[in-house]
């Protein structure tokens, strides 16, 4: 009997948790699909309910801060800043996993410590470097920074993963006369697909959600990313809540979809390198 009661209680509590936790998201969505007059006294009033897509259209085509362009920019930057660091990090991670060379431990330690660095510690010089290289306010500049910034954690994750791969396969290929690079490309990478999926999904999300680095490097209207657009909408351009929430919905739906589709890999990516198993 006790078991039954506690299970019922557990289910009720679980349901409560779900409801409370999803309320913020539901709130935003509710305001996004209704005209502002209706929600002035709270979106939970359903006296008048005329759902509309108008807010989304307005957000996408906002006269001074159009979200459509922002979403496109985010997409471009996140895609390129997802592929590049994964490949470069995989190379380095493989070296850490399989090769031995002097200063290996120190190099590895240094790279790992970079993971905890606050972005503020690099902000000023990065800004100056970008100007000197002529990369300020360019896609390339932002992509490079995101790439460099993503490398430490991706290297750690992939290196741990590579260590779990059976070395016999690689040894056998070596006996067949394959070079290190060929082994890496043709054998190790294909075997690492799950891990690569994890880091790719996480990195894309991380870059998409970024605000600070974009704030630092990109400033002309046509290059602003989606997160910046949302912030300017609220801050400088005093967009009413309905358009604002529509914009927020659009910006957050992309990482949510990625999470939904790649859930297994996503979670493994988050947990996998911090905890055994």
């Amino acid at each position, binding site marked *: 009997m006790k078991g039954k009661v506690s299970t019922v209680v557990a289910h009720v509590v679980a349901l409560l948790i779900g409801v409370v936790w999803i309320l913020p998201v539901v709130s935003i969505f509710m305001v996004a699909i209704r005209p*502002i007059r209706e929600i002035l006294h709270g979106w939970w009033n359903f006296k008048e309910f005329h759902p509309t897509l108008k807010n989304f259209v307005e957000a996408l085509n906002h*006269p001074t801060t159009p979200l459509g362009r922002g979403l496109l920019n985010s997409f471009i930057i996140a895609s390129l800043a997802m592929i590049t660091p994964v490949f470069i990090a995989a190379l380095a991670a493989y070296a850490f996993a399989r090769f031995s060379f002097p200063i290996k431990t120190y190099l590895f330690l240094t790279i790992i410590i970079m993971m905890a660095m606050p972005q503020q510690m690099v902000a000023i010089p990065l800004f100056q470097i970008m100007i000197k290289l002529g990369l300020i306010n360019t896609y390339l500049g932002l992509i490079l920074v995101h790439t460099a910034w993503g490398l430490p954690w991706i290297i750690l994750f992939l290196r741990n993963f590579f260590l779990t791969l059976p070395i016999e396969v690689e040894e056998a290929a070596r006996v067949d006369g394959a070079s290190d690079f060929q082994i890496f490309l043709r054998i190790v990478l294909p075997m690492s697909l799950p891990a690569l999926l994890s880091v790719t999904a996480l990195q894309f999300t991380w870059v998409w959600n970024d605000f600070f680095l974009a704030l630092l490097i990109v400033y002309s209207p046509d290059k602003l990313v989606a997160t910046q657009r949302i912030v300017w909408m609220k*801050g*400088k351009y*005093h967009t009413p*809540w309905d358009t604002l929430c529509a914009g927020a919905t659009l910006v957050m739906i992309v990482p949510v979809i990625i999470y939904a589709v790649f859930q297994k890999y996503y979670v493994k990516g988050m947990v996998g390198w911090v905890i055994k198993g």
Partner: protein
Amino acid sequence: MAAAGEAKTLIIVVGIVCLLIGFGAGWMVKPAPAPMKLVVIGPWSGAEMESFMPVLGAFAVEKGIMVEYRTYRAEDLATILPAQFKAGKAPADVIFMWAWWIRNNTEHILDISDIIDSADFMPGIVDQVTVDGKVYGAPYTGKVKPGFWYRISFFEEHNLKVPTTWEEFTTLLENISAIDGIVAPIASGDGVGWPLSDVTEHFILTFGGTDLFEGLINGSVSWTSDEVKAIFKDKLVPLLKKEYFSEPDDWTLILENWWEGKHALYFMGSWITGMVDDPTDLGVFSLPGAKAFVFCPDFMFIPKYTKHPTEAKELVKFLSGAEGQTIQVRQGGHIATNLNVELSAYPEVDKKVAQLLQGATAVTDLDDTIGGEFQTTFWDQLKYLWAHPDEWETVLAKIEEKAP
């Protein structure tokens, strides 16, 4: 293995050929020479840009010179222009920019004292772009911050009158508080903070005068000086303490609440006429005794590196002259800086604002002019003041810390 190697070679060869064709074609096909046209850069986009186009169009028709318009925000220009100017280039023939920026960059700007006569403009305006007696910028139209807006229907319904003295003003506020449904007589908007700074500047201007105001801008007057303290202590803070000002609340929500009658007065800039359902129901009055207003018109300048200085000057003369400004104000939402623009050119609502300005002096927005850390601190501290009016002395001290 061999087949794969072949495929690879093929792809590389095709790739190189494509590249060669692309470059070759680009090299050979030269674009036809462009007809002479002037390029204008301004901050407006969307609806605001739409209302600027007729002005450019009228110029093109009258002078037979084509004009192209490009949108760039002032903040972005501030980052782009210095590099371009250093390279001796200019992205346009006429550029709209902040007055203080024009003043700081005169070495790259054409002297237009020959086409701008300060007598044609509201007193104080041309000074904003004059350095060492030479005029580097031309005033266009702009938005003013004239005072407190109200709904005429609301005032009529409750038998309220526009105040002409300070006592009448405080009595008005008290009467409004007593009305049913009123949450607070004066609505306080909260953007990044500027609605609060605007109304504060209005108080300072009205009771301190333009000299004090300018002194605060250039640092010769301290925020903790007796005069400034008196303005806060005797005028602004008591109103705050009596809760005549609402909480700073979301700018757009407040607009709705004000229109619905939860508030009676809303201190705003003249752009509000474009944001309400029924502009004819709008009335405005300033603090009794106000003789100066924050008026930040748009300014334009001609970079030295333009390839068409004569035509550019023609355009500037047109735009800042009565002709150009009249076309602009006719469309509503703009107030002219040129004194030769007739009152009749304004739509009804804007006319009221223009009338308020007659005989008044124009000054620049205080925090915009100083900018930097002062501005963010100023806004931030005012938000604090609204929530805790009793700590006004601390607030003034904190503002003074970051003041010039």
